[in-house]
């Protein structure tokens, strides 16, 4: 670092003003006041990122809490996070596919088929659980590879091959289960324990929170230093402080509150970890950059020399593998696999979560966090309605209405953005 900053001292591009703050039309964003002003401007202009979905979530929480005081109980929050995780993992794969502007309708069937393959291996064939788990996930990877070949070599649209997959792997699920129907995972299965009974201890949880905060602050400070050394604006230090404190308090309090009940289950922690890793892969690596490029404009990506086919292969393989993993976690959570596994509305839920979280169906826009936010929104709605116990006709109607409400906030803000001339 010091070396770099010395370099910049003799760098001819380093002027008295930072390179990215020269243009006089630019509304500055250095001090805290600047940052606040620019935030207000952004809100007015409708560029809110994830804020609207978060607001939607808060609205949902308030409404259900008013109607049913156990909604925000720590027990219920624990249960929401736990049930959100497996489908969330599937949704994470969907986010990738959507980023490319493609779709995968078969994640439900694939999840069911992979889980059934694993269960059959463990229960009927006596294969070791770890091996069976790996095989289950590999089943997903291979399916993704086949999809990728169909897409890149033959040129079949993703809608079509994944529709074919939706049917075919539903058949394969029935075939693998054969006449026995439901397969129950062994009582002592590690997967069962992992998905159902393992919770972080308080110490573990707080250490984790501290780690997250330290990593966040550390990486931000490092970036600021390097930016300054490179002759660029470093960003407001006060703002960073505020963000760090907010993060620490937010996560800390949530951990404390959930700890009143059983705390963080391993399942949501794994999911959050996957989300963070995918977010870093997407935003901070060459591969992720290329995924966004292909999703934004395949032709431009191709002309830029990106090996577009490789990107498609990696994404389809990842998506199906996440589907398989999600299905396996679902099986662990339910303790069994049946003919109905993955065939119900897993597809729609996974896709809807990604879209509600703000990932575009048309490619190039979205984030790994959208899977997390979207699935939490959907699970909260379902949990709230479960607590209210209304007639199923009303339940369907209300689910639809709440869903609409949660997304409308985002839509209205996006509307503001487009009328002020920003796509």
């Amino acid at each position, binding site marked *: 670092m010091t070396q770099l900053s010395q370099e910049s001292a003799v760098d001819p591009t380093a002027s008295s003003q930072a*390179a990215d703050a020269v243009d006089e039309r630019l509304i500055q964003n250095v001090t805290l006041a600047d940052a606040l002003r620019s935030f207000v401007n952004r809100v007015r202009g409708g560029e809110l990122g994830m804020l609207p979905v978060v607001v939607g979530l808060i609205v949902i929480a308030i409404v259900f809490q008013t109607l049913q005081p156990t909604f925000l109980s720590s027990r219920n929050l624990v249960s929401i996070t736990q049930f959100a995780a497996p489908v969330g993992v599937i949704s994470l794969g969907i986010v990738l596919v959507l980023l490319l502007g493609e779709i995968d309708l078969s994640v439900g069937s694939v999840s069911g088929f992979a889980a059934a393959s694993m269960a059959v291996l463990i229960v009927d064939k006596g294969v070791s659980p770890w091996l069976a788990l790996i095989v289950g996930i590999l089943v997903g990877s291979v399916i993704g590879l086949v999809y990728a070949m169909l897409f890149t070599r033959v040129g079949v649209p993703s809608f079509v091959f994944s529709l074919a997959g939706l049917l075919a792997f539903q058949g394969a699920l029935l075939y693998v289960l054969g006449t026995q129907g439901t397969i129950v995972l062994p009582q002592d299965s590690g997967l069962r324990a992992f998905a159902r009974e393992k919770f972080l201890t308080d110490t573990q949880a707080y250490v984790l929170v501290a780690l997250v905060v330290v990593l966040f602050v550390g990486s931000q400070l490092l970036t600021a230093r390097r930016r300054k050394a490179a002759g660029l604006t470093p960003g407001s230090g006060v703002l960073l402080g505020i963000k760090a404190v907010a993060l620490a308090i937010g996560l800390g309090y949530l951990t404390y509150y959930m700890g009143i009940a059983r705390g963080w289950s391993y399942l949501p922690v794994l999911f959050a970890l996957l989300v963070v890793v995918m977010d870093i892969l997407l935003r901070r*690596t060459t591969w992720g950059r290329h995924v966004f490029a292909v999703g934004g404009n395949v032709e431009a990506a*191709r002309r*830029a020399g990106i090996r577009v086919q490789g990107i498609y292969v990696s994404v389809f393989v990842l998506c199906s593998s996440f589907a398989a993993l999600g299905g396996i976690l679902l099986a662990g959570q339910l303790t069994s696999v049946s003919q109905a596994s993955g065939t119900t509305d897993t597809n729609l839920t996974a896709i809807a979560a990604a879209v509600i979280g703000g990932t575009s169906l048309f490619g190039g826009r979205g984030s790994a966090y959208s899977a997390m936010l979207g699935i939490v929104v959907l699970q909260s709605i379902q949990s709230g309605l479960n607590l209210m116990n209304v007639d199923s006709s009303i339940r369907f109607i209300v689910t639809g209405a709440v869903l609409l409400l949660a997304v409308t906030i985002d839509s209205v803000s996006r509307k503001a953005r487009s009328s002020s001339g*920003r*796509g």
Partner: protein
Amino acid sequence: MTQLTKRPVGEGSVLSLTGIHKRFGAVQALTDVSMDVGAGEVVALVGDNGAGKSTLVKIISGVYAHDAGEIRFDGAPVTASGPSARQDLGIATVFQDLALCDNLDVVANLFLGQERSRGALLDEIEMEKESWRLLRTLSAKIPSVRIPIAGLSGGQRQTVAIARSLVGSPKVVMLDEPTAALGVAQTAEVLNLVERLRETGLGVILISHNMADVQAVADRIVVLRLGRNAAEFRTAETSTEQLVAAITGASDNVVTARAQRTAGGLS
């Protein structure tokens, strides 16, 4: 049709095309087109709208496959197809339709396909710094390199596309109407740039409709008309009138008519 001043053979060219054909559905876009470029040479490719210039550029850069004909690079026939293979050879292209990713910001577009990394992660700071440097050499007027390309003006995008071709180390640079959307200052910078590229020994193919610019920087001028080689000139020996006549296919054309009619025509 007009005089063809052939380039002396043996003066080994970096890139040479012979007998290129290309058909799109019912339209025969290119018929038996040949041309070559030497190291340290600027060849201008001119022609009327739809003459097939951009199609030729896209064939060289690997975006389209040609129906017939041969491409040689550094003396050897080019077999690998696709843009990434051609880039690996050392051919950099600024496309007329720019081909930028609207959803990515200026930095990401500039380094697309040639990202700088620090370990496993992208080195955003290095790239941003380098972006400002590149853009400044082109006198670009871009307020921020962190806004998506979608929010740039036409000329700003064009500048980004040109700056892209300076990342990496090509042997041949093709510029398809690079100055079309540029302001006067930026145009002057690009012409300077072309001269600098020639001095460093690169082959340059420049497409432009601006005869003044073409005559200012090109060594040779290749004229296409309706998808065929129509003429080839050495710049030093050519007048604007000759060029326009070769492009339009008639010495008696709307350009000369307008020039005669008005006082301040094409100079």
